Each structure stands twice: as structure tokens, then as C-alpha cells.
């Protein structure tokens, strides 16, 4: 008797967890598009992508004008909790149950790489905005995915080049001691030396260690003109805050964050962040179009935040995807959609004109920004001024250096 009740309980549990699994995928050939946003909502990158990415995707759907033309566009979003396993399980299920034909954002490299693999296997589309790994258009490139917004190479390359050319020719790195930080440092070093600068030294900082005074003291005594922060997230914020405390910028040194988002500036406040230079593929206050996009976005999110480049990238990539699908007619053939996307030039409110290379790299200008002094900031989120605009061809890794097998050399 016990066995039966146990088996019953087990069945119930399985069925409950299987819940909505049986949604037929057969309806797909109508004028229907299924969009899935996979991002970090509860973890350390929630402000960079998170719920804001879903809002950006929703805006792209509305702005595409396709709803009025009889298309039905479904949007689903989920928190992958920065776990590759959760991300790949969600991706597989969404595909197999016909809930998503295209995946957006994919913050965190481990999740992006895992979903990239699945999307290729199942011939869907991945438009990666949040992940940084330049492997996504290198060894791991795929005919089904486009790396939209930025990568470690473009960040390091553009920041390094622009600052060195402007006279910042001696560098000291504060580097997060793992693969990501080392890649940033390596790529920046290459471009700094190529442009006639030199790297004086570096200090490795353990990941998620709140205190950077040890590394900053070394940077200070190195007398380098530029202190490059090869780290991300909370590490970047903490190192900037403490650099201000130790008076690095007052001492005439320039601080360059190799990966930083506008929300980080907001979180640090201008008094701590002023003078800092960093590179973005999107800044909300660039021109009328970006301002219009950003203001519409800002009204729809919590705390009235302005979009980060990741969220703008989600918007931009979905607009372009929808254009491609509209021109192709109803289809879920991912590789066909991506090759159409590569054939069409991109243009949208958020990221302007650009194009997609054969290795899946989206090309657009990137901007070297400098954080304003508190006295220069006139209105909310007036945080930075553009120091230099780096053309896309110079910012991203040249095709000739690509390890991507799709590239015909």
C-alpha cells in the first residue's frame, strides 16, 4: 500500500514538474516568432542585463511594426542564475517545445558558450549581447549565432589604442587573476606596444576580493601614466572607489576600466568615478536617436535607469533579426535567418548603422568615454562625455586573425 502511495506521489511530482511541457510545436509556420531572453536576473550582473534586457526586447518587438502586419511575436524570459546547466536546460526545452526560435542576451560566457552549442545543433539563432568571451567569434563561432555588442578583444583594443594615441603611453595593470582578466591584459598590452606605448608592470588581484589597496599602491609607485583595470563587475567598482581614496587621479595618473557599464558609473557616483575612461558600444546621450530610445526605455524600468550597452544590444539585435525574418517570410531555419542577417546592413535607433561579418561579429563604432566631474553633470544620468570614436573596423579583431572556421581566407 505504501509502495502505491509512494509511486503515486512520485508520479504527481514528475507530472507537476513536467507541467506545461507538452505545448505543440506544430503551429510555428503561421506568422509567429518566438523570442527568448536568457539572462542573469538575480546575480551580480542583474543591472547590466537582467529585467532590463527583457524590456529592451519588448521595445524591439513593438518598434519593429510587425505586430500591425499580422505577425504574432511571443516573448519569454528567464533567469539562468549564471549556471550553464540551467541555461542549457532552458534553451533545450524552449527549442523542443517551440517556445523560442531566437535567444537573446546570454550574459556570462559559460552560459553563452553552452547555449551557442545547443542552438547550432538545433539550427536556431543566438544573438549574444551580454557575454564577453571573444571565443564566440573565434574557436566557438557558429553559423547560427552573432556576437552583437562587445567582446574582450574590442574592449581591450579600443581602450588601449585610443588612450595610448592620446599620450597615455605607459601602463600599469591591475588584473583579475583568472582567464578573463588575463585575456583583457594580454590584448591591451598588444595594442599599447603596437602604438608605441609600454607596459611598466602589473599586479594580480584575486577575484571577488573587496580590497584593492595592495595593487593600487603598486600602481601608484610605478608612476605609470595609465592604470588599466582588467577586471569586471564588483571588482571594477571596488578598485575605482579605492583608487579615488588613495588619490591616484589627483597624483596625475589616469584610470582606464577595460570593462565597465554605465550602471557601474551610476553605482559608484561621480565623485568616485570622475576622470575615469572606459569604452562602450553604446552611450545613451550620443544623439537624438539614442536619447529617444533611452528615454523610452528609462520610463519602463525600475529606478528609471538608462540602458547599458548590453540592453541596447539586445534591442538592436532583435530589431535586425525581425527585419530578416520579415524579409524571409515565416521560417525557423536559424542558419538561413543568420545568413540573411549577415547580408543586410544593420540600422536601428540604439546602435546606428553597422554590419555583420562572416565570423558572426557585429561591427559598429565604439566610444571612448570619460566620466564627468560632479560639477559638469547637468541632469540625471549625465555621466560621461565622448573622448574618441573608434570606427568598427579598428575596434574589433581583424578577420585575418580570426580562428573561426567559417572565415574563408
Amino acid at each position: 500500500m505504501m509502495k502505491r502511495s509512494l509511486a503515486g506521489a512520485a508520479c504527481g511530482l514528475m507530472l507537476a514538474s513536467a507541467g506545461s511541457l507538452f505545448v505543440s510545436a506544430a503551429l510555428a509556420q503561421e506568422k509567429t516568432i518566438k523570442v527568448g531572453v536568457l539572462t542573469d536576473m538575480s546575480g551580480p550582473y542583474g543591472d547590466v542585463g537582467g529585467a532590463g534586457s527583457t524590456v529592451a526586447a519588448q521595445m524591439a518587438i513593438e518598434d519593429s511594426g510587425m505586430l500591425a502586419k499580422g505577425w504574432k511575436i511571443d516573448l519569454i524570459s528567464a533567469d539562468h542564475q549564471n549556471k550553464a546547466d540551467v541555461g542549457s536546460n532552458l534553451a533545450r526545452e524552449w527549442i523542443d517545445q517551440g517556445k523560442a526560435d531566437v535567444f537573446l542576451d546570454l550574459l556570462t560566457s559559460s552560459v553563452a558558450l553552452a547555449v551557442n552549442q545547443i542552438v547550432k545543433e538545433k539550427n536556431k539563432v543566438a544573438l549574444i549581447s551580454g557575454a564577453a568571451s571573444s571565443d564566440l567569434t573565434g574557436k566557438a563561432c557558429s553559423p547560427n549565432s552573432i556576437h552583437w555588442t562587445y567582446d574582450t578583444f574590442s574592449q581591450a583594443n579600443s581602450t588601449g589604442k585610443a588612450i595610448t594615441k592620446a599620450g597615455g603611453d605607459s601602463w600599469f595593470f591591475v588584473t583579475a587573476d583568472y582567464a578573463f582578466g588575463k585575456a583583457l591584459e594580454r590584448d591591451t598590452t598588444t595594442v599599447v606596444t603596437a602604438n608605441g606605448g609600454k607596459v611598466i608592470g602589473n599586479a594580480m588581484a584575486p577575484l571577488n576580493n573587496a580590497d584593492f589597496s595592495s595593487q593600487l599602491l603598486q600602481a601608484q609607485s610605478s608612476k605609470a601614466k595609465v592604470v588599466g583595470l582588467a577586471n569586471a563587475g564588483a571588482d571594477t567598482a571596488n578598485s575605482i572607489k579605492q583608487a579615488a581614496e588613495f588619490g591616484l587621479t589627483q597624483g596625475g595618473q589616469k584610470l582606464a576600466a577595460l570593462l565597465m557599464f554605465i550602471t557601474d558609473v551610476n553605482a559608484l557616483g561621480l565623485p568616485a568615478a570622475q576622470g575615469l575612461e572606459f569604452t562602450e558600444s553604446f552611450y545613451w546621450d550620443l544623439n537624438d536617436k539614442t536619447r529617444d530610445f533611452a528615454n523610452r526605455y528609462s520610463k519602463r524600468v525600475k529606478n528609471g535607469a538608462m540602458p547599458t550597452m548590453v540592453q541596447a544590444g539586445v534591442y538592436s539585435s532583435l530589431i535586425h533579426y525581425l527585419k530578416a525574418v520579415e524579409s524571409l517570410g515565416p521560417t525557423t531555419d536559424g542558419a538561413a535567418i543568420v545568413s540573411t542577417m549577415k547580408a543586410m546592413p544593420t540600422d536601428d535607433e540604439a546602435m546606428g548603422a553597422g554590419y555583420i561579418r562572416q565570423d558572426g561579429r557585429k561591427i559598429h563604432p565604439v566610444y571612448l568615454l570619460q566620466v564627468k566631474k560632479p560639477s559638469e553633470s547637468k541632469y540625471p544620468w549625465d555621466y560621461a562625455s565622448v573622448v574618441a570614436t573608434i570606427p568598427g573596423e579598428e575596434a574589433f579583431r581583424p578577420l585575418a586573425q580570426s580562428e573561426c572556421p567559417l572565415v574563408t581566407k
Partner: protein
Amino acid sequence: MIPLLGITTQALFAQLLVGLINGAFYALLSLGLAVIFGMLNIVNFAHGALYMMGAFFAWFLLNALHIGYWPALVLAPLGVAIFGMIVERTMLTRLQGLDHIYGLLLTFGLALIIQGLFQNYFGSSGQPYPVPELLKGGANLGFMYLPNYRAWTIVFSLAVCLLTWFAIEKTRLGAVLRAATENPQLTRAFGVNVPRLITLTYGFGVGLAALAGVLAAPIYQVRPLMGADLIVVVFAVVVIGGMGSIMGSIVTGFALGLIEGLTKVFYPQAANTVVFVVMALVLLVKPAGLFGRKA
């Protein structure tokens, strides 16, 4: 300048001092944990979350009520202590007589809830908190530039640690507290309200965590996960010092800050791990920790 192992003595002094400052935070946090463990036999996994709450409390006081750093140094620990005492009254007290691990698990769950709520409300990247006007700037010591605020951190936390030690080991109140830890029944028979003592102790330990949080707010980014990674290191500090030992946690906190500082200079790859390696070595020799009495 005399170079030593490829680094000048001046730089070495600088790194030692910086290490000591970090040690001040370890000491304050592990002291709170030790006080709570000594009295309640609970490993307070929520300690990191309460440290974060202290920092956010200070931020809230400044931004919503325009109350500055100095009052916050008192108000924030008080506020968090009240929160802690409510938690103790409503939840922890129901675990009395059960195995210690349930306290660990409950506070672990609490930490998740608190961090999750703050994350939802304030976002992941956190909030700015300025250095108080009085402590802005710094002094050039010759071998390093020492921000005034860091100097204050080290002096203040050392004072708090020693006062706590004195209160527990040398005063009448402390004697009652230790008696209640040793033998609650007997202490009750002397007319001491032991449950209230327990609640107050938890509030005090939690207040120490919040105090560390306020102290950290001007130098570390005030963000929901600021305590999540720190707490595991502090656990290791407590284990090395010997659980429940007041002096042990203070001394170990400062000492480990120093060791970590040295590691950052000579072998930065191990800066994350050195605390755990030290812990393993100490446990091999003394399973109860350096200052612990029994395992």
C-alpha cells in the same frame, strides 16, 4: 631602500599596513561570530548578509534622512541589532536543543532571503557612499600614502575589539554571560534571565557585523552581495582562531590580514587561498584551532 626578496622595505611596510587594515575587518566580523557561537552555539551564516545590511542602513540614513556617517556608526548597528533580536526571538529560539547544524542551515536560508530582497530592491551594482568630510584626504608616510579613513578604520576597530574582549572577560556582565554559556540552568537559578541574555548577545554580535558594514561603506562598494564572498573567509578565520574564543578571533583576524597582505606581494596567485591553506595547516597541528579549548 634595502631590497628584500625583490621588493623594497618601504613597499613591504606599505603592504603590511594595508594587510592590517583588512585584518581589522576580519577581526570585527569574526569577533561577532565568536560571540554568537560562544553564547548560542550557532554558526551565524547570515553574518555576511547582516554586514551588508549595516552598510545599506548607513546608506539609507544618508540618502533618505540626511543623517551622516557619525550617527550612522551608532544607529545602523542598533537598527540591525534590533532586526537580529527579532530573528532570534521568532526563529532561532525555536531551534534550542536541536543539533547545531540546524542553526547553520536556518541562518544560511536567512542570508539568501536578505540578499535576494536587497538585490531585487537595490539592483546588483550597489550604491555609492562617500568618505565622511572629517576623514577625507590622507597623509604621506614616506613609504606610502595612507588615506585618513583607513587609519581611522584600524584604530576604531582595534578599540572596539579590545573593549568587547574586556567587557566579556573582565566585567561582571561578562562573567554572568560566561556563566550562562557554561551552565544555563544553574545561572537561571541565580535569578538571571538567560533567554533575554541570549537575545541580547545575538543582537550584540549582529551589531558588530553591522558596525563592520558601516565602516566598510566608504571604501567598498555598498552592494547586496558584498558579504557573500567575505563570509567564507571569515569562517576560516574563526576556525583558525578556535570557535568561540574572543581573543582568538581578534588576534587571528589581524594576523590573517597581515599574511594575506604578504601573499599579495610575494605570490599573488595564492592570495585567495592562503587563508584556507593556513587553516588546513593549523588544523593538522591543533584540531581545535589556535585558541580553542576542545574540538
